[in-house]
């Protein structure tokens, strides 16, 4: 009986802890966003975060996208050839890349690269008193450190996803025309015919949400890190893992929202 009650208590503690974390995250994100609406604005901090998010993530996102597009074309061909449906490959590639793989893979790559870097930077600033120093210099750390990063995430990831979409489709085009013998003009016409503006915009909307989540997790875990180097390491790990899980969970929710009939 006692063991059973202990189990129930543990579940209760876990649930309360989860609610507390969700509440803290919501307050943290809300505070960060509210600072975007009130001066002073730190344009240099935004530019720095934007360059980190967008420019320095380009190579990894580009490589991921182009290889993913190539793999989808190849895999689709082996499956569709059984039903003589090879002509649908261009549509499968473009819809897969634009709706799903572009935003999700770019999000996961950026979470690993930028989310980790944000958590480590803010975590180090926390344990070396740099965040406290901002306060003593009459600078609100949420406004100076968090708000510019949230904005950079929301703007930069959709731009990265546009690049990922283009390169993913290009990857499928290269494999389909060079290896599988498709006619280039026919492939491109099929691609354009299958794709709608809704597909592109839904992917970009997902990317904006994912960018916000990556920045939020990086900032939240870094900002609240404790306990020296070990704490910074734990914050970095948490930022990447939680952001990755949230990206996949929100991907389902947003897909349901955009496309469920």
């Amino acid at each position, binding site marked *: 009986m006692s063991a059973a009650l202990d189990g129930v208590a543990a579940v209760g503690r876990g649930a309360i802890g989860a609610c507390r974390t969700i509440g803290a995250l919501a307050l943290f994100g809300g505070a960060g966003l509210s600072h975007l609406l009130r001066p002073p604005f730190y344009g240099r901090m935004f530019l720095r975060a934007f360059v980190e998010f967008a420019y320095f993530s380009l190579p990894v996102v580009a490589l991921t996208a182009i290889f993913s597009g190539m793999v989808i074309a190849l895999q689709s061909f082996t499956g569709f050839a059984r039903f003589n449906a090879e002509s649908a490959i261009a549509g499968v590639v473009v819809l897969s890349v634009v709706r799903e793989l572009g935003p999700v893979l770019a999000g996961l790559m950026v979470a690993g690269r930028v989310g980790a870097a944000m958590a480590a930077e803010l975590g180090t*600033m926390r344990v070396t008193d740099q965040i406290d120093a901002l*306060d*003593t210099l009459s600078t609100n750390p949420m406004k100076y450190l968090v708000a510019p990063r949230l904005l950079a995430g929301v703007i930069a990831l959709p731009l990265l996803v546009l690049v990922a979409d283009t390169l993913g489709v290009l990857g499928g085009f290269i494999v389909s025309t060079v290896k599988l013998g498709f006619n280039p003009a026919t492939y491109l016409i099929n691609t354009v015919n299958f794709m709608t503006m809704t597909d592109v915009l839904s992917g970009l909307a997902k990317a904006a949400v994912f960018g916000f989540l990556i920045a939020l997790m990086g900032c939240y875990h870094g900002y609240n890190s404790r306990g020296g180097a070990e704490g910074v390491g734990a914050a970095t790990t948490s930022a990447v893992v939680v952001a990755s899980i949230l990206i996949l969970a929100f991907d389902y929710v947003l897909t349901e929202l955009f496309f469920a009939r």
Partner: protein
Amino acid sequence: MMSHALRAMNGAHPKIRIRGLRKSFGAKKVLDGVDLDVPAGSSMVVIGGSGSGKSVLIKCILGLIEADAGTIEIDGADVLRMDRRARDAVNARIGMLFQNSALFDSLPVWENVAFGLLAQRRTSRAEARARAGEVLAQVGLDASVGDLSPSELSGGMQKRVGLARAIAAQPEIMFFDEPTTGLDPIMGAVIDGLIVDCVKRLGSTAIAITHDMASARRIGDAAAMLYEGRIVWSGPAGALMESGNPVVDQFTHGRREGPIQMQLRR
């Protein structure tokens, strides 16, 4: 016994007046009713062992840690009951030198020094840079150091830059958290000398926390000892070594035997 005597000495309302300040972390009472007066223009040194709550005291005054109870008055206004905007206005009049300098490692030295000017005063970058050069000279550093990254500086130079950042906005109040920790004795004396020079030149009111007795005597006009969450003694800094208080005597002379029992885990 309490520092009310300092107010009587000065004969005016203290610049900083702390009454009944309490702060606990879980079951651990770190500050348990701290009373402290710091007269305007004086330097108060707070001494105490590691983990005695000295840093927590300063962080409560700055609003970096939320106190559980008590009052902290600066120029008669209770900062614990101020909104964020009013609190920021008070903090703008305070300079702080952190124990590990806490320089922003993503910024060059000159931007660290001029950070407060750039962030709040809306000074142009050219003016801020010129001002940073002037302040660096006041702490004995060449203006060319301004182009370096904080990671390229020695510990002593980082302290000087931290001090330059603290005085750049010419604050009315200055806090020094363990200013000589990690420095050799000569560099410690140099930093203490710079602190005294800066405080005197600006006419600031200062609180320094330390467990370095030589540093305490060099920096302070007055001293107070924090023990078990309370101020157990206060008086002139020159009387630290002959206070007549058994707790202070044990601490200042570094005796193993006495009323202070070190918390050792076995």
